[in-house]
């Protein structure tokens, strides 16, 4: 009985779940990079595209030009005492500015030059590890090959590779990723005004956790969409769910107010499960029990 229900469920709502499966599978045309950590967990990083990196490059270029001008202001002061040495020091500093700016900043400041810091991007190794001095040196020496024809070679390489790597990144085994700020997800939507579905109007079908989370997040972000678009999207899931649930209540609830219907489904199942756990009648829901054992 249970097994047939599970199979049916996966078939009907596959249109919806395929949307979620895609995000966990490897995408060819995505901005995501996946890495498996030694803890056997898949980590995803958001890759930085050429545009963002270009802005970072412009900022860095400005800083490097600024450093050159700064040196031209300061060095002549030293030149009053030792004119020759001053020029020598200046030449060495110019060398470091040309060849060492990126290596030093990325090698010692966790993969961020000043421009990258402002753009919120960072260089890491392909394995997800922080960059060290040798790869930093390598990727920035090869920069001079990338820079041919105004970075034409580098940009071509970025377009042709899946992870937006220029030649320097390919050699050094590095990628540039976007930094994301941590934000704890908000509390799940509490729907006080929504009435749970009447138990007499629905069958024995239990939606999966994925579906409930999908509803939760969809409702949480409904203000992003226009009213019509949001309801049109919600209708797809609502119709499928109503059919699956053998919903025998007012059909207008599903067609006119699909979002409210979804909220009702969410409330019915996410809270009913909790209550049942409290009562500890876990034998009614073998799936819940096994899940709990698995977790603990």
């Amino acid at each position, binding site marked *: 009985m249970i097994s047939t229900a599970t199979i049916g469920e996966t078939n009907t709502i596959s249109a919806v779940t395929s949307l*979620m499966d895609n*995000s*966990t599978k490897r995408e060819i045309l995505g901005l995501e990079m996946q890495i498996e*950590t030694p*803890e*056997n*967990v898949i*980590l*995803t990083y958001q890759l930085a595209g050429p545009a963002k990196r270009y802005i970072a490059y412009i900022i860095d270029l400005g800083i490097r030009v600024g450093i050159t001008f700064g040196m031209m202001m300061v060095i002549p002061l030293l030149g009053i005492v030792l*004119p*020759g*040495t001053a*020029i*020598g*020091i200046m*030449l*060495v500093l110019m*060398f470091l500015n*040309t*060849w060492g700016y990126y290596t030093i900043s990325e090698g010692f400041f966790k993969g961020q030059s000043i421009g990258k810091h402002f753009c919120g991007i960072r260089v890491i190794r392909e*394995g*997800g*590890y*922080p960059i*060290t*001095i*040798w*790869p930093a040196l*390598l990727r920035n*020496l*090869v*920069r*001079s*090959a990338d820079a041919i024809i105004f970075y034409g070679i580098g940009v071509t390489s970025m377009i042709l590779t899946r992870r937006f790597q220029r*030649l320097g990144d390919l*050699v*050094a*085994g590095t990628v540039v990723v976007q930094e*994301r*700020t*941590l934000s*704890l*997800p*908000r509390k*799940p939507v509490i729907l006080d005004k929504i009435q749970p579905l009447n138990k007499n109007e629905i069958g024995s079908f239990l939606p999966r*956790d*994925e579906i*409930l*989370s*999908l509803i*939760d*997040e969809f409702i*949480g972000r409904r203000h992003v969409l226009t009213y019509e678009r949001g309801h049109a999207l919600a209708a797809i899931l609502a119709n499928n769910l109503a059919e699956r649930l053998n919903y025998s209540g007012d059909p207008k609830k599903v067609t006119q107010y699909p979002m409210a219907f979804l909220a009702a489904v969410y409330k019915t199942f*996410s809270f009913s499960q*909790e209550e049942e*756990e409290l009562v500890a009648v876990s034998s009614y829901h073998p799936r819940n029990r096994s*899940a*709990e054992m698995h*977790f*603990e």
Partner: protein
Amino acid sequence: MNKHKFIQQRRPHWKQFEETLTNSSRRSLSKLPAEDISRFSKQLREVSHDLATIRSRGWGHDLISYLNDLVARGHNLFYSAPPTNIAGLYRYLAVDFPRLFRANIGYFLVACLLFFLPLGISWYVVQNNPSLATRIIPEKIMANFDQMYGDESPLNSDEEKAESQQNSDQPEGTNFGDQRATMAGFYINHNVGIALKCFALGILLGIGTVYTLLFNGIFLGAVSGYIVSQGNGERFLSFVVSHGSFELTAIAVAGGAGLMLGNALIHPGQRKRFESLQVRGLEAVQIAGGAAVMLVVAAFIEAFWSPADIPNLVKYIVGSGLWLLVFLYLGLAGLQSDSRLVPVGKQERTRSPESNYCGTPRQ
């Protein structure tokens, strides 16, 4: 286990982990006391487990991306590379660089062939037929050389002030040491730049490196041949002999590293092309780095010793000594077994290319 319950139960742990992350991101993890580090390790594994749980249950994209970022930060901190320090630098110059150089000596020999052979040929040709020099060297620069190494040059007391391949203006009215410092800066800027470019352009299937080596070889040969043919050979050779040891060898070393990059793409062996590029690139850059250090040494010799007012005989003796030194260094340094490098030897395992490539946890 219900989603809300799970979040409720785990949220304090995540908050705590987040706090640990922000506190220790400023300082290196290695500066924390031992129990903090093992607690951090435990937390990282717990949060990783939470992430895996939530992924497999499909408990929402927001939650997954939050935990993903949390784990990513912890991962970065926990698996960061051992810090680089002075001992590491010493070990690199004394052991790692010569070893890597010898392990890939074939590339160096090819680079030598591409650099010294054209140099020798163009030297020989131009010395016997100086008029050919105009085909390679611009007239203006040739006039400069005549002036620099000629009898009427003001170098008889101060010897030569500038070297063949460059023709910078001399600042006037300064004393010897001060003026030399300018040249030292110039040589570092100019020569190391050439060597690094020679290496980096190797990524274009080695073509850039081959071009740079051939060009510099032919040019230097022509300049030398021309100067010698004008009867200034004695002055020129005594000037060049000392720093030439480090400088010319280093150019060939950098060229060899560049050829390594190119060859990694052309002949990847059992690996994929990009993999082979990464593995050999990491070795090549360490060789190129060594070449850069050698060129800095050469720049100081060239600026302060080569033009000094010292009898030519002394210069020749010291010069041959330096050549010998370069060969001994590249040929013999780092030959001792690692067990003799006891205190530094422990770093060997963590600094070997393979494990460096993967990163190693430090606890």
